[in-house]
């Protein structure tokens, strides 16, 4: 049973990708709908298996590591797989209605979409460094392609910039992997972790880790390496922006987190940890400030992503040298943050897309009267905003709470300032949008009303991010599921 599930997760998206490459937009759309359904079911199935039996290692084709591809399926991985399935399905469904079938190059959306999905699954499940690299590359290239799909000159420029950044990041990462392989002779994460535990900190390995962190930080758009993100996410089509902000940047972060948790204690240092945290904090403040000033709606949301990504990097100082309990709180907090941000940001971008389509302009000021005539779309945007601000009862709040506890518990009270101030600053740009929409413009409804299905999708995502707050405990308990030892050298 598990064999089929695993295959489904990695190979079927590739199959769908190839299939849709041969079709036009409409037929590709139908195939995608079918594919999304399959993927959702498979993801749910895997989740059920892990919930029931616990995590496990899985060697592809029966070839064990270090030669073969080893996948690691634990509670965390399976949660992210499910998250990907939900968000990607939502974005894909939205795109199938949102994108204009008349434009012939839109048919490339589907293959790129499926490649992206495959890459994401590869990253979540990957157990060794090289496979992670493969997944990362797949993701980056698909993402660049999706950004370029907009067609205008600005989109192409943004895509090129993104490509350069992605390539540089991948290069740094690969260099790091090579160094590590040279030193340890293994590519499996578990194996390397064991090695460093035994031998202690090694400056060569430490340098390798720093290189990899640099590369991954660049791909995750950590301040000050974030310059490629706002153009890319802001100019791309809304479903693409949603995918990018929600999932793509999280993939590189996921790898960075994995590396840090396994290797950071030995190979990292206090300075590195605090430094990354500091950059994250700066990102929060800088991103929020820039978001407040943007005249265009999607740019506001894009800079908001820059800000929210900053929170994620608080993982580094909060888990380095901290006690078991504090580290667990920090990890739980960051995980919730990742999930809730993914749901909320996807909802926000999709809702923003609906709003822009209805209003006919992408400026914030053009939103006057929206709260009267387009309440549904605005409401999904609003609910997503609540999660971003970290206000109860959303998932963002649960994440903030855990991070506050971790900061207090580890005595690093300065992150409290970042967390609380960040919340207030994000309220600044979120309420700017609310305010613009409450302006009473005229009594006539001159908006284009999008199809109901387009409006429902972001609402579902936003409600999920709210529900995450209420069900945080149960979600987290899945992630803490025991892990079956086995495999790896």
């Amino acid at each position, binding site marked *: 049973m598990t064999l089929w599930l695993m295959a489904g997760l990695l190979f079927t998206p590739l199959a769908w990708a190839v299939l849709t490459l041969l079709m036009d937009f409409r037929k590709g759309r139908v195939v995608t709908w079918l594919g999304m359904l399959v993927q959702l079911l498979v993801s749910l199935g895997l989740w059920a298996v892990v919930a029931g039996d616990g995590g496990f290692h899985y060697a592809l084709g029966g070839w064990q590591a270090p030669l073969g591809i080893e996948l690691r399926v634990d509670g965390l991985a399976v949660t992210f797989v499910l998250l990907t399935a939900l968000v990607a399905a939502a974005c894909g469904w939205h795109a199938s209605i949102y994108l204009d079938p008349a434009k012939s190059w839109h048919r490339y959306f589907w293959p790129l979409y499926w490649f992206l999905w495959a890459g994401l699954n590869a990253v979540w499940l990957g157990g060794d460094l090289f496979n992670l690299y493969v997944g990362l590359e797949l993701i980056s290239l698909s993402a660049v392609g999706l950004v370029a799909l907009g067609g205008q000159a600005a989109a192409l420029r943004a895509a090129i910039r993104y490509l350069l950044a992605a390539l540089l990041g991948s290069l740094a990462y690969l260099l790091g992997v090579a160094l590590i392989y040279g030193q340890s002779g293994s590519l499996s994460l578990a194996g390397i972790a064991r090695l460093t535990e035994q031998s202690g900190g090694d400056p060569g390995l430490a340098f390798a880790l720093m290189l990899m962190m640099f590369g991954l930080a660049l791909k995750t758009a950590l301040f000050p390496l974030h310059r490629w993100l706002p153009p890319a996410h802001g100019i791309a089509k809304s479903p693409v922006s949603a995918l990018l902000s929600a999932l793509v940047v999280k993939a590189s972060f996921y790898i960075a987190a994995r590396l840090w948790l396994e290797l950071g204690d030995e190979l990292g240092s206090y300075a590195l940890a605090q430094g990354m945290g500091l950059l994250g904090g700066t990102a929060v403040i800088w991103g929020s400030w820039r978001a407040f000033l943007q005249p265009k709606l999607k740019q506001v949301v894009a800079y908001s992503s820059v800000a929210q990504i900053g929170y994620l990097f608080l993982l580094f100082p909060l888990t380095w040298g901290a006690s078991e309990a504090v580290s667990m*709180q920090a990890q739980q907090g960051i995980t919730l943050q990742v999930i809730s941000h993914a749901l909320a940001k996807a909802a926000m971008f999709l809702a923003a897309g609906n709003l822009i389509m209805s209003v006919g302009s992408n400026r914030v000021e053009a939103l006057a009267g929206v*709260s009267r005539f387009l309440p549904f779309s605005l409401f999904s945007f609003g609910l997503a905003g609540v999660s971003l601000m970290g206000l109860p*009862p959303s998932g963002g709040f649960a994440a903030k709470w855990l991070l506050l506890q971790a900061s207090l518990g580890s005595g690093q009270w300065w992150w409290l300032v970042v967390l609380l101030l960040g*919340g*207030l600053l994000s309220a600044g740009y979120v309420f700017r949008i609310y305010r613009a929409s409450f*302006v*009473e413009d005229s009594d006539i409804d001159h908006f284009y009303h999008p199809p109901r299905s387009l409006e429902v999708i972001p609402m579902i995502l936003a409600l999920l991010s709210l529900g995450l707050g209420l069900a945080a405990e149960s979600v987290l308990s899945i992630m803490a599921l025991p892990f079956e030892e086995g495999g790896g050298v």
Partner: protein
Amino acid sequence: MTSSALLPVAALMTSLMASVIIFALPEKNYRLRTLINLAAAILKLTLVVVMVWGVMQGREYEAAFTMVPGVEFVLRADALAMLFAGLSALLWLLTTIYAVGYLENSPNRSRFFGFFSLCVASTMGIALAGNLFTFFLFYEMLTLSTYPLVVHRGTPKALRAGRTYIIYTLTGGAVLLLAIAWLHGLVGDLRFQEGGHFADLAPSLEGPVTMIFVLLITGLGVKAALVPLHGWLPQAMVAPAPVSALLHAVAVVKAGAFGIIRVVFELYGLEATSDLGLLMGLAAVAAFTIIYGSTRALFQVDLKRRLAFSTISQVSYIVLGLCLFGPVGAAGGLVHLVHQGIMKITLFFCAGNYAETLGVHCIDELDGAGKRMPATSMAFTLGAFGMIGAPPLAGFITKWTMGTGALAVGMDWVVAVLVASSLLNAAYFLPILHRLWFAPQSRPWPEERRWGRLETSSWLFWPPMVTVVLTVLFGVFAALPFSPLSWVELIVLREVAL
């Protein structure tokens, strides 16, 4: 879920469900929307009454689950919760009726009533919260659900007021969150408990706990409009009258005051707060707010702004009552929660009536309104006298109880504060009453509307009549077992075990 857990959840869900349904209804279905509004309000009131009955018999209603690891979401209906919940449920019903009439023929009613119901759900949650975490959850929900009500009209003034409101309340919320998280880190998840937790506090914890208290009061003080955190309140008057009535009588300011009550009585404990030297400071802030609010009210020309500053002053009575280290003083402060709510909502309803029926917003336009709208003016008169503390109205009961409590513990300066405040209240209310009844109408009404037999629409007419009758009843029949005073005495007996 057992029945004892079902009731609090159900009370919360009535308005949540109503909110969702109303949001989904198209704008033009006003009859159905009104029906749902009223039905939900009546249902909630019924549930609250059932819970009050149960609590009086000694039953316990509680619903809890772990939301985030390490902390619980708890809804608990105890005597103190029922005081606030009862007030909220009753006044929600009346304000809903009022709002239906007030917003007739204005746009965006679905949006308004949807957020209105959400606001009341949040208030109910605040009342029923069993620990600080749950309290905070609903406290922030209240902020979010009241913003659209404040900016409802969409005018530049309304939007500015909304911005001020959000800046104040979210910052207060951040401070509160800091305090709660810190407290959690120190002592873990503490449920509200009669008598508080910190009676035997380890000396090493005294410093942080004191700091946390200051932060808690600051965070809660924004909504409770303690000076200097009160700046949002007068500006929020730009909202429609039902919103002002709800904000100032029931939801927002009372939520802040209620939070302070919970913290002082059921988290820290009255004795612990006093031992840490915090009660005197709180009393000083409250006393200053009382005088400041009343003084500012004297200089306001707009009727609703005058009432706003009056609210700032009156809510601090509640806080001051808590600081009167004793059962009588505490009773006075707590009972003012109910009394001020009833009286202030009467005044705001009347102000709204004047605005809707005559187009009158400024005090100097009220000349001769008593002749045109006698019943409303009578309600306003009684409400004003209640604020001044004239017997036999509810406000007198509060002042008398608080004065007696203050004298009993030797804090005589409090009596001077009460007297000064009453004088100031008289100074800014009595001239309005003179204008209503004794000044001849000097110019035509700015925008008069006629409704047939009654002086104004019946939706607008009856709610203030009901509340003013309650004002009189709560005062005259204060000794009866079902009066707010008796209920409060019951609470205080359990809380202040001195």
